[in-house]
Structure formats: structure tokens, C-alpha cells
């Protein structure tokens, strides 16, 4: 059985060497390459030993999904096909994962929402599927522009949810993501989110691992639940299906399993910290003002912080990398000296500010905003203006910036 074999050092049919993932990600030489975010997804998947990828067109992930098709044609993925809708695609991913495959898919915005019924099922069934979410507007009227509202729904599903800032994050986290979510004590799906277009359609320098190294294949027999391939004894799973019982045992079973799924999210913490060097990154946390942000809002905040630095205003930064598991303790620690906490976001409701508010004491320190949505960009000036307003420093009118 695969469980007893080590693949490290062997070659796959594309002559890639199954490599110790820690060596591959942290020690092997890197090659700087100038790629779009979509191309970076392709390059990560090329090295991920995926068995199945299911694709569906929706802007802005269509290019990445199609590029993975090219990988299949070249022989890097076991099987690949276009599903008929995101709901179907996520079920097809589930079927493949139930059957013991390492599964990859991508979606965005309305597609995420259409498929939503699948996600708590994935988590409950302990399927370590990786789904790239290139966030876009989900509102009416129709929008294809960047907007991170969909992440707030994903955060309640029992999936791991990470929010990448850059294409480099994306590249590393796709590969590291499998290592975390396939741990036997985790074994949960991962929604790896980014802000659509900003990351997918812009070019960036990304340091790639060697193309002749790839992750060892997934071993489904390390799963905490049986793989549905008739390779282990099938026994009657229960005397009475819980769905038809209204009694204490039935409730207790459902309750304990939901608790176990969330406990598995918590158990992912130690693996995630090891692979990602912490759930947050921090800069200058001794400052009076600290920006807490995730995704592209982090990049914009860095610009704003540099602008303010020139004016003698010192501002710290917390980059939130994982939303599930939620880095509550880390954020509490990083913001404990802050008098003001600014939370800029690419969505209208401010879900990150709500999460932070529920996490720290003295949460009147939190200033939720600025918020942009529906595809608007977030110029560093509006973050700087927000900070100045909070500090009572006069800011010039943004309308007067000129064209």
C-alpha cells in the first residue's frame, strides 16, 4: 500500500524528482521569474503532483484554470476537465478527493457563492482539496472587479482560509498549503484567496523552485476518515443513520463532529506557523498607529506607511496571512501598544475589522476603514488620510490631488 512507501527521490513520468517538501521550499535554489499571477498558479501546480484539476470559466480565474489545462496536456496532472457550473465543479472535486486524489481547482466571486453548499461538506468530509479564490464582486449589478466580500462567507465553512498578498505568496502557499491541509491531524480543504486582477493579472518578480522538483504524491491512507476506494474493509458505518434520529446520541454525534472540524482548524495552527513562519507578519509594532490588513490592502498600506514616514508619522503594520486559523493571540500581542488600529479593506462590510474587534481588548481603538469595493482601487493617499484624521492631523483634500 502507498502508505508504506516513500516516494522521495523517485521520479515521476515528467522526470521531476519527488523532493522532501521542506528542502524544496526552504533550501533548494530559487530562480527569479517575471510572471502574471495566473502563470504563477500554473508554475506552482506544475510542482504540486496534482491528480485531478476541475476547471470552469469565470473572470478573473479563467486564465489560471486554462493554464492548468495546458499542464494536463503536457502530462503534469493526472486528469483535467471542465465542469458544468461551480456547484458541480466543487462536487466533482469532492468525488475525486473521496476517491483519494490530490485535487486542485480555482474559482471566483459569484462562482464561490454558487458552490457554497459544497464547502461545509468538504470540511465535514475532511477532504483536503485546494481551491484558489481570485476574489471579485458578488453584488448586483454585475461586476467582475476586485472585491473581497466572498471571503467572509468562506470563513464560516470549516475550511482553512488564507489570504495572499502577492504572487510570491501565492506560489509558496499553493505548495505549502497541501503540506498543511494534508496533515493527518488537519486534513481539511484550503481556500487560498487573493484579490482578483490585482494579483492574477499583474506581472511580478517571483522566485520559483526548481522545475525538476515536485511534492511527493498525496497518500490518502493517512486520512483520518476512510478513503472511498474499496481498498479498506467496508463495514456498515452505523446502525441508524443520524439524519433520521431525533435523540441525544444523534445530536451529540453531529455536535462533536462539528467541534472536531473546528478543532482540526486549530490543529493546523502549528503546521501553518512552521511552514509560513507565523500566521502574521509585523513591522514596527511599537508605533502608536498600526495598520492591520490582509491581501492587496497590505501592499497599499505599505505605500501609505512609507509616505507618512516622510512626514515623520510612524505607523506599524500587521499583515494577516491566515484568516482560518485566526491569529487572534498574535494580533492581540502585535497591537497591545497601539493607540489606533486602522483596518483598510477591499469590501463594503469590513469583515476583517469585525474579526479584529472580536479579538482584542479596548476595541474602540479600531478604525474600520478605509473601505473600497466594487473594483475601486485603494490609493495609499486614502489610507494615509484616514490615519491623519485619526491622529487629528490636517490632511489635504483628496479631491485636490489633480489628475
Amino acid at each position, binding site marked *: 500500500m502507498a502508505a508504506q512507501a516513500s516516494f522521495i527521490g523517485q521520479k515521476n513520468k515528467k522526470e521531476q524528482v519527488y523532493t522532501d517538501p521542506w528542502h524544496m521550499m526552504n533550501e533548494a535554489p530559487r530562480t527569479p521569474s517575471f510572471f502574471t499571477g495566473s502563470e504563477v498558479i500554473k508554475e506552482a501546480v506544475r510542482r504540486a503532483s496534482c491528480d485531478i484539476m476541475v476547471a470552469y470559466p469565470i473572470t478573473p480565474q479563467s486564465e489560471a484554470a486554462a493554464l492548468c489545462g495546458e499542464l494536463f496536456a503536457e502530462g503534469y496532472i493526472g486528469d483535467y476537465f471542465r465542469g458544468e457550473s461551480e456547484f458541480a465543479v466543487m462536487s466533482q472535486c469532492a468525488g475525486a478527493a473521496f*476517491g483519494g486524489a490530490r485535487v486542485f481547482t480555482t474559482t471566483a466571486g459569484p462562482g464561490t457563492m454558487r458552490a457554497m453548499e459544497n464547502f461545509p461538506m468538504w470540511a465535514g468530509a475532511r477532504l483536503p482539496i485546494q481551491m484558489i479564490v481570485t476574489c471579485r464582486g458578488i453584488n448586483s449589478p454585475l461586476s467582475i472587479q476586485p472585491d473581497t466580500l466572498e471571503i467572509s462567507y468562506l470563513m464560516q465553512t470549516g475550511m482553512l482560509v488564507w489570504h495572499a498578498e502577492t504572487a510570491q505568496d501565492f506560489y509558496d502557499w499553493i505548495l505549502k498549503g497541501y503540506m498543511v491541509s494534508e496533515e493527518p491531524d488537519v486534513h481539511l480543504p484550503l481556500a487560498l484567496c487573493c484579490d482578483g486582477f490585482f494579483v492574477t493579472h499583474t506581472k511580478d518578480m517571483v522566485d520559483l523552485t526548481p522545475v525538476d522538483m515536485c511534492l511527493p504524491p498525496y497518500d490518502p491512507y493517512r486520512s483520518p476518515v476512510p478513503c472511498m476506494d474499496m481498498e*479498506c474493509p467496508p463495514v456498515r458505518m452505523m446502525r441508524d443513520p443520524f439524519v433520521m434520529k431525533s435523540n441525544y446520541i444523534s445530536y451529540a454525534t453531529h455536535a462533536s463532529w462539528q467541534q472536531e472540524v473546528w478543532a482540526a482548524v486549530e490543529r493546523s495552527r502549528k503546521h501553518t506557523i512552521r511552514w509560513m513562519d507565523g500566521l502574521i507578519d509585523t513591522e514596527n509594532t511599537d508605533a502608536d498607529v498600526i495598520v492591520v490588513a490582509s491581501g492587496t490592502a497590505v501592499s497599499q498600506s505599505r505605500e501609505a506607511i512609507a509616505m507618512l514616514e516622510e512626514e515623520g508619522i510612524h505607523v506599524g503594520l500587521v499583515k494577516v496571512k491566515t484568516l482560518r486559523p485566526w491569529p487572534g493571540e498574535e494580533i492581540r500581542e502585535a497591537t497591545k501598544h497601539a493607540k489606533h488600529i486602522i483596518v483598510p479593506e477591499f469590501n463594503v462590510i469590513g469583515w476583517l475589522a469585525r474579526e479584529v474587534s472580536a479579538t482584542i481588548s479596548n476595541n474602540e481603538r479600531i478604525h474600520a476603514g478605509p473601505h473600497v469595493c466594487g473594483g475601486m482601487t485603494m490609493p495609499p493617499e486614502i489610507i494615509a488620510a484616514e490615519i491623519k484624521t485619526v491622529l487629528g492631523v490636517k490632511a489635504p483634500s483628496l479631491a485636490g490631488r489633480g489628475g
Partner: protein
Amino acid sequence: MSKERIKIAEELFDIMPVEYQDLVKRATYGNGQRGWKDIGNAKELIEEHSLCAGCPESMAFRYILASLPNPEDTVMVGSTGCTSLVFPHVAVHNIHSLFGNQNAIASGLKRALTVRFPDRHKDVVVLAGDGATVDIGLDMTLQAWFRQEKFTTICFDNELYANTGGQESGLMQKGFVAKMAPVGKTFEKVRLPEIARESGCHYVVNCTVSKPNLIEKVIKNAVHVAREIGPTYLQLYTPCILEIGKNSMEGLQEMRDSEKPTERFAYKEYVSEPAKELLAELAAKEKERKAEAKKQLAGQSA
């Protein structure tokens, strides 16, 4: 999975559940000749079910599980409904995930098993009710057929939503008064067998489950054709005696009444040309096997 895999270490045999001991000693895994006649003689792959007394679906379930040609390498996919109350008792791996997505699950599953076990047959069989197959899941039912996914879809057609209490479904007859069809259903029973044929299924049968030998034959045909050629579809009438006002003992008669030549479950079959060739080949092999067995038997007695 070979039958070896389910064997119990001798030292631990006595502490295993009695159902499992039974499974090892008397189940028909690996027996190429298994069929409905094993019911009552060999360990069945379904334990006591939790359906209504006399429910034809429970009969259908037993016939199907007795007839699977390769249960030791078969994974079943179910959907929400009365069938999902039975699957937890079934001794082949089976997946319940959501309502209506069974053919999407099966598509991913079959492809994963093909990637992982390229040199072996791993059969996938979907078994779902008519609401799951024809209403909420129709899109995924048809798309799996369009894509020529190599698995069998079985629809237990009881012409309504039984598990939720008897609401109108697409396979309900026109005029039938039900919940959510308070003045009678206003449109015809959806003609899914014809749609299945046009959608690319290679073997389609529409019948009742009144005759176990017939069910054995169509199940074996459907699984073999799906394994070698492409999608297959069986629509089996399993009346919900509760919702049509019948008693426990009346299910069989209801099916017999509905399979008369002029009725909606008169036996209908479609077999594509490649499927015909395959089935003829299999029939020839079976004939050869029987002749050989007869010869050996004659040799022994001589």
C-alpha cells in the same frame, strides 16, 4: 480490493462484530457468479434497512447489491432521500455528500480511481431518487452523460419526493394530486429514458423491480457497459406505497400493474451498437463458461 483484505487475524476473530465475521465468512465478494439467488443463502451486502415495511425500494436495494458484478471494487454514490437512510448499512464504500450532486461526485470519483488504479476495474454506481436525478440534479445527471463518464446511474423512481413527505416531482404522473401539486400535477412525467438515450447513454432500461432475475441482468449489463464503453442509465419503479395509499403487502402488485404493455413502466430498453457488441461478447463467454462447467461436471460423474 481482494477478499484477502477483509480477512480478520485469527486471534482477533472472536471480538469482531458478528456482522463483520459474517461478511468475511459468507459474503459473495469475488464470486463472479453472484446474483439475486444468493439472497437468503449468503451474507448480503445490506444489513437490515430502515425503510417502511414492504417498501419496494428495499427489495430493489437487495437485488442490486446481490447483482453487482464486482462489489469488492465497486464504490456507490447516493444522494439525499430514502436511499440515504439505507446506505449507511451497505457493505461497499458509498458516498453521501449533498442533494442532487451525485453524478458530479461520481464523475470526480471515477476519474480519481482511474488515475490511481490504471490497471484495475473500479466500478462506480450512482443510486438516487427521482427528485435527485431529474429535478435538482438534472443538470449534473445530463452533463455526466454528455461527457461520457464511465459509470452507471440508477434512478429509484417513486414518482414523488418520498422522504420529505410526498411532494410533486418531475417524474410524477400528470394529474396526480400531491403536496405542492394541490390541483394535480399540470405537466407530463419527464421522459428521462429517452433523454438518456439522446444524451449519450449506451444502455438504458426503464422497468419495475418486480422480477429479481431481470434486475440482476440489467444491473450486470449496465455496470459492464459503463466500465468498458460509457454512461448507462436504469430507471426503476419503486413505488412509495405510503404516499400512494397502499399497504405493505401491495407494493409488488402495484409494480405488476404498472409494467403491463400499455403502462408507463412497460419494459423499455435501448442498447447502443458498441454496447450490443460488448454484451454479445460477454454472453458468448458466459455460454462457453457454462459449457465448460457442464463438461467438467460430466467428467466428474463419469
